[in-house]
């Protein structure tokens, strides 16, 4: 090729390369900003006392979101099962502590009011604990990463009504380092979150419902990498028995938080809320735990 022709080709190519990259530009948000409403946040565990977080929601493009908590709201908690009521009018950094304890099988209602926002309310039932009946374990060496993997079969008895569960696995580290979550994986069909490639579900929180095992004994097999035995004091399996609201909220929250970093092409997530005239969650759960020593 002649030099002049080469130059022409290179110039043409340069133009194409210059034009091809995408262009980004800041734009103004031109939709409805939505109304700032009260946020009631409390995922209450059976047998614990209520500590309800009250804050205000903010526009999603607001720069400063450091101080959204509201400490001057009036929050009333009512046990709908026995009629007892408690009101707290001052919160500590937006956290309103109550003396009332979440009792299994009881229903509760929270009503939060503030001079600047519409009154918000929500109700929940406190579910029963479901114990893990038995656990079988086996270990093997992963040939690819040369790390020890543990296969665990855990069993529990599912009550007859519709039930929702969340399973977590943690390692209890020695030396005061506390618990740290372990990511696990399973091919179990009952998993309702995190299912990604070819039926494999994985993550640090597996959510499942009892569609496939309602009212019967459930055996669930999961596997995960095992930390060195010298550094941990056992592996803790926690089976959380949740209300439907708790389950839906956690799944939507996890999906939203994951997909936000996951990419522009993720399907949008609508965060579940059971709060009337506000945002957030007020819902119960109970846990059953099992420690594996090895």
């Amino acid at each position, binding site marked *: 090729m002649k030099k002049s022709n080469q130059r022409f080709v290179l110039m043409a190519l340069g133009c194409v390369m210059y*034009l091809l990259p995408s262009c980004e530009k800041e734009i103004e948000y031109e939709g409805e900003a939505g109304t700032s409403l009260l946020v009631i946040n409390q995922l209450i565990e059976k047998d614990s006392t209520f500590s309800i977080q009250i804050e205000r929601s903010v526009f*999603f493009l607001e720069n400063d979101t450091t101080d959204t908590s509201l400490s001057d709201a009036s929050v009333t908690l009512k046990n709908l099962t026995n009629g007892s009521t408690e009101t707290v009018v001052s919160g500590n950094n937006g956290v309103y502590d109550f003396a009332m304890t979440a009792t299994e099988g009881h229903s509760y209602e929270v009503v939060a009011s503030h001079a600047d926002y519409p009154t918000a309310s929500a109700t929940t039932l406190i579910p029963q604990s479901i114990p893990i009946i038995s656990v079988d374990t086996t270990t093997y060496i992963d040939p690819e990463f040369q790390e020890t993997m543990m296969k665990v079969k855990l069993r529990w008895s599912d009550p007859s009504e519709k039930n929702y569960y969340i399973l977590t696995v943690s390692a209890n580290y020695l030396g005061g380092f506390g618990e740290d979550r372990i990511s696990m994986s399973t091919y179990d069909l009952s998993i309702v979150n995190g299912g990604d490639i070819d039926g494999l579900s994985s993550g640090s929180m597996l959510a499942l419902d009892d569609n496939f095992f309602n009212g019967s004994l459930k055996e669930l097999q999961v596997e995960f990498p095992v930390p060195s035995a010298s550094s941990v004091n056992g592996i803790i399996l926690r089976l959380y028995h949740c209300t439907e609201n708790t389950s839906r909220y956690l799944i939507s929250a996890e999906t939203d938080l994951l997909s936000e970093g996951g990419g522009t092409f993720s399907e949008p*997530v609508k965060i579940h809320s059971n709060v009337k005239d506000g945002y957030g969650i007020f819902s119960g759960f109970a846990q059953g735990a099992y420690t594996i020593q090895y």
Partner: protein
Amino acid sequence: MRNFHLLSLILLMMTAGQFLAFSQENTSTRTISGFVTERSSGEPIFQAKVFDTISNIGAITNEYGFYSLTLPTQEAVLRVSSFGSTSLYQVVPLDQNEVDIALKSEVQDFEEVEVKAESLEKTLEETNSGTIDLQLDKVEKLPTFFGEKDVVKTLQLLPGVSSGGEGSSGLYVRGGGPDQNLILLDGVPVYNASHLFGFFSVFNNDALSKVTMIKGGFPARYGGRTSSVLDMRMKEGNMKRYNVEGSIGVIASRILVEGPIKKDKTAFIVSARRTYLDVLTKPFMVNAREKGGYYFYDMNAKIHHKINNKHHLYLSGYFGKDKAQIIQRYGYTSGGKEYDYDDKSGLGWGNAIVAARWNYRIGSKMFMNTTATFSHYKFDVSSQGTFTTNNNGTETENSYLIQYYSNILDWSGKTEFTYIPNARHYVRFGAGNTYHTFKPGVYTDEQEVNGTPIDTGGTPATEIEYANEPFLYIEDDHKLTDWLKINYGLHYSAFFVGDQTYHSLQPRISGNTILTKKSSLKFSYAYSTQFIHLLSNTGIGLPTDLWVPSTDKVGPINSHQFSLGYNQILGDKYNLVLEGYYKTMDGVIQYKEGIDFIGSGNNWENKIERGQGWSYGAELFVEKKVGRLTGWIGYTLSWSDRLFENLNGGEKFPYTYDRRHDLSIASSYEINKKWDIGVVFVLNTGRAVSLPTQQYSVASNPMLPNYFGMSQNLNYLNSVNGYRMPMYHRLDIGANYHKQKKWGESIWSFSVYNAYSRLNPFYLYVAQYSNGEKKLIKVALFPIIPSVSWKFKITHLNRKNEKK
């Protein structure tokens, strides 16, 4: 439902009744039949009008140029005309009933008033509303994107049709999804019609002879999709002489060769196109550690053999592929060890289509077309390489091959008949079957250490689905009176997949009432069923989109569509169409919340939601087909919504391609014999996307993993697709310079895409800067893009032939 079955029954009785009527027909008639072809090439002419000027009875040719005209037993004087050809008169004596006619193409002759009028009349008389025949010569005059003429991009300029986004070659017709369009190339469905991640369509303009789009109310002969039909016909090859055409553009070049293998007996046509971005960028990567490249090619080929006047054979094929790859090769030393890395990763997808066809003129009134087809679409992404570690002479080599691919393979056969008992009826019936093989996602992971395979554990069984999709149809284009014509018919189809069987009886009816000499009123109703789905959440035609069948868990899509249109000829040059439509869709699918776009074939049924869709709107189309200035203005006002039980809290939300307003202007002007210019202007409502409105803290709990602590904020989405991207608008300008050469014709095409460099948003995202400031950012793909291409038509061979 009762009404629906009643309508089916009525249509069946009407169609069956016609057969009885035909058998009792008066025998004092004669039937003239034959083929109408283009004189210089021998190409059949579709929809040519054959009209007996004595009895005032006329007929239209089918897609193979066949016509049949039943007349009183007397001498006939036929006038044969077609848009773009010079009309011809022929006396047909009583003893001659087979008449093949060759029309001469007209070279832009602006005083052809008769043809102008006939072209407009034909639009007025067509039974189906929402049908548009694209004038391919006009496509050539419009400005291009990167110098590539693209019929699909031109179709996007029609009212009721929109693109998936900037630069996209996707088609969204009247609120339907891109998978709901039946895209036929010589009667064979094309699954992924996109090159270069959706920016170009796979169709090579040079090889096409006819492009028809039916936006709604499609006749009973079409089935398998619920939104529209895009019926494209390849040229059949020049029976008379050789012809070579080609073009060289900024990113691609193409060539077409056609001609007779045996004059007037056998013809061939071959066209090919390839991009050369990979070749152009190669010199810059000589010493690079990473080398990459991308190209696509496509090839069309066809052989047409005329056995005799009754039998024709065709063999056609399309082969196209996109390929992108990155090669990484480097070594480094660390901790006294030497490491070498060698990886080749690639992404490829493509279609292969083969069709064998036999045309048989059974008699003067009946025509048969039997087709056997094969269609294969494959997408694959793979990574293959070695990682070598040298530790003081001890070498360990890890090799791997990770591959993910999906494909759909169809074997299909059908026989169709055209029966023209008299000038008032045009009956079509046929049957066929498609055998589908779906491999929605096959994942393999093979690894070896020093040649010894290791168990990767995670390779699950492949889910392959097989399905049979038989169909049967009958339709009649029935001219009830001189002012009322109805096309009615039934399409039956079934889908056998695993243990599940679906049946669908689909009534179709459309009609045309001629109100005055210059106006008509058209209506249509179509019920259609679609047994296959496209899993996609990008809508931009990425090859990762997966075709999946209906299963026992996921049923088919069913759609009802009604439309009412009014046609008015303005003066003798303009055609105005005003049309309204209403469409319901049941069984549409969408990914569940949070699912990312990298699809997965296995277990896909658990990742989708099934719901309903509605779309309705009004379209205005004003077209000028003849003269120096040609083109159209199209405007659409429309709504398109979706409803899923588990999405958006069970509330209705706008479809992402819901466009309230959509305006397109496409025009070309012939300045003189050397220069013509073209302009395209597009303006439409921005795409509906999901943006949150409010945010708040996540509730404290022990279940979400630690890194989702209290500092994390949740985004509250008021409604799915509740936010509109900024309005889309764009102006393209082009000019063509024609010059006659000794060897033929040279055409230089200059185009400026997005002339005023509007940064139309492709997608939006929220950026958070280091100072904590949050901003909404739009990402645009293409600013102003000038391009130039050179096209040539070699006619030297023609002259040589003519001399002979």
